[in-house]
């Protein structure tokens, strides 16, 4: 079983690597980490969060809907990315070839990707979150309801509470 | 309900207490790292 998959992966690599590195999803990388260690892979994914600068290099975290992983790139390359994914944005989709490390010695054993260059294949955009009119209606209705109960609650419960004496807590 | 009053002496001794807790944590982490280091140098 294992041998078969080794042969399979090698076959894939044999035919595709020389032309341009084969394209993988992040989950496939994690799943085949042992075999792909040190291999050049091509990834296409959305840049998320922000760029974490470390000297001449930088970490870019990417998410391709299967999983998320960090890419270590020269800082000039990282600067190409203008939009990062978060609540208000869909980040730039970047494509790059990178060396995959199962346990990167340089980065404390982290599973990571080292790329020398990246290209942006699709510019990100800001995400609209249109407000559902039903939500506004619901909000209005609930506001009135809560106010009503609140007023009744205040008149029924609050004034009498003054009489309730405060007793010491018991512990056993 | 008892109100909190600021007491300089209590504050000082409490701050020392928090510091000693963090101190213990630093020692714990160092000890853990030493253990890891020993394991990493032994050829398994």
């Amino acid at each position, binding site marked *: 079983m294992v041998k078969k998959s080794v042969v399979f992966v090698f076959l894939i690599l044999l035919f595709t690597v020389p032309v341009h590195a084969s394209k993988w999803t992040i*989950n496939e990388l*994690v*799943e085949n*980490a042992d075999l792909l260690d040190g291999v050049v892979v091509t990834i296409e994914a959305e840049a998320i969060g*922000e*760029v*974490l600068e470390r000297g001449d290099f930088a*970490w870019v*975290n990417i998410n391709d809907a299967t*999983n*998320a992983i*960090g890419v270590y790139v020269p800082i000039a390359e990282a600067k190409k990315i203008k939009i990062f*994914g978060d*609540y208000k944005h*869909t980040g730039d989709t970047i494509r790059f070839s990178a060396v995959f490390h199962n*346990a990167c*010695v340089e*980065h*404390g*054993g*982290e*599973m*990571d990707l080292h790329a020398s260059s990246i290209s942006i294949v699709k510019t990100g955009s800001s995400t609209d*979150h249109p*407000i559902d009119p039903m*939500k506004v209606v619901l*909000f209005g209705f*609930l506001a009135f*309801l*809560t106010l009503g*109960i609140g007023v*009744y*609650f205040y008149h*029924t*419960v609050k004034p009498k*509470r003054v009489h*309730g*004496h405060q*007793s010491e*807590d*018991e*512990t056993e | *309900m*008892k109100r909190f009053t600021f007491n300089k002496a209590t504050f000082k001794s*409490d701050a020392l*207490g*928090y510091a*000693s807790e*963090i101190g*213990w*944590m630093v020692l714990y*982490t160092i*000890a*853990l*790292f030493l*253990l*890891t*280091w020993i*394991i*990493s140098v032994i050829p398994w």
Partner: protein
Amino acid sequence: MVKEIKHPTLGIISYYTGYIIVGMSLFMIFPALVSTIFGEWNVVLDFLISLFISLSLGMTMVLFGRNTRLQNGKLMWKHGFVVASLSWFVLMFLCAIPYLLSGHMNSLLDATFDVMSGFTTTGVFLLQDLDHVSVGLNLWRHMLTFIGGQGMVVLALSFLVREMAGAYKFYVGEGKDVALVPNVRGTTQIIWIISLVYLVIGTIVLFINGVLIGLNPTNAFFHGLYIFMAGWSTGGFAPNLQNIMYYHSFSYEIVTIVFFVLGSMNFGLHYAIIKGKKMEFLKNIEMQSFIISSFVGSAIAAVALAKSGLYTDSISLFRRVVYNIVSANTTTGFGSIFARQFILEWGPLGMLAITIVMLIGGSACSTAGGFKGLRVGIVVKAFFADMRKLLTSERRVKIEKYHHIKDMVLDDAIVRTSSMIIFLYLLMFIGATMLGAYFGYPVVDSMFEAASISGNVGLSVGITATTMPSAMKVYYILAMYLGRLEFLSVFALIGVMAQGVKTWLKRA
């Protein structure tokens, strides 16, 4: 308008549960405010809608039981337990409303699963597309785990209800049974003060560290706050899918180790150390138990991984192996490797080590889960005491002691309670493992996940996913709930419900 309930038990339960719901729902104001600042208008609406629903329900419940106020001091143990477990259950649904409205959840069951995971400081989640979650919802997730960890029932009651006779019963009902000072309000205050002091320290340290590793200041602050809340409460949530790997930083990991180990410590121990008993750290039976389990667990896993040749240097071993073991032992669940790496790379020995430390868990009366170091320590000590008794002459009766803040007598009653709870945990763990196996997951994988769920850890090998069978989601929710409240409260709730059904059947 609202009719009072004449039945005393129902009235009491309704009254206190109502107050707890009111108290917890007020916390929804924070994410609503933060979302307002960030202009996330949709999220603001989500939280206000949830706030109104919860407030209305809470106030109505208080009104139903309003004659409770007049009959002070009739609170029985079962009331404390039932109120604690019932309010967790009701709040699970109410706190899930913002999740559901956000559109990030696939179903109500998934949303309640995430809330229970937060309350119980577990840290597994079924939320979809975490990397695009709003600031408001992320704050809410981390607040749930922070508040749940310190004890929301007691917090709400000590602020909202004047008449606190018998508060100790609620307090024990929520799984915290240490009395730091003679009254519960004082004890609760101490717990919260310690937590808030560390919240400030932790957020500042993580903020500075965050700026140094390249986060922009606003993000550094929020990430620091989130990671502290999740670490201190031994929850293990993080604002991004990569969990602690998002930061790619050794220093960030070390800081989290400090705070989650502190978070897994007994509040009684915190109090003792802060009040000047510094050596208590080493003398305490729970710390001894924790230090032994985390060191032995780390050593076994590190040897297994060093032998496999995956990690060769000490830094890699520390960051990828020891970090996860300590995170598992404190039941935090921050992960510095991908979930599938446990299965693919850790091997049987590594998996066994991490599964066992997850079951052992942190200290009693902390935010941690698992058997608890105290119980393991007591049972181990009792075992050796019995051994000694067998070997020495029968005449000499020696009183065995253990040290927990002060020297305590190791009597049979405490040994029995401890072993009973360990036994219940094991049953729950076996049940979860078998259920996983029934649905076709490999045994080692389902053991890992079962230990993670029963011990409120939150590491995952990937079984916990929105695609898993609903029966497993329900069992996992129950296991997290039972494990966190340590069985008794939930049993009391079931008992009272059964009693109610019985009387109702008799009347009919």
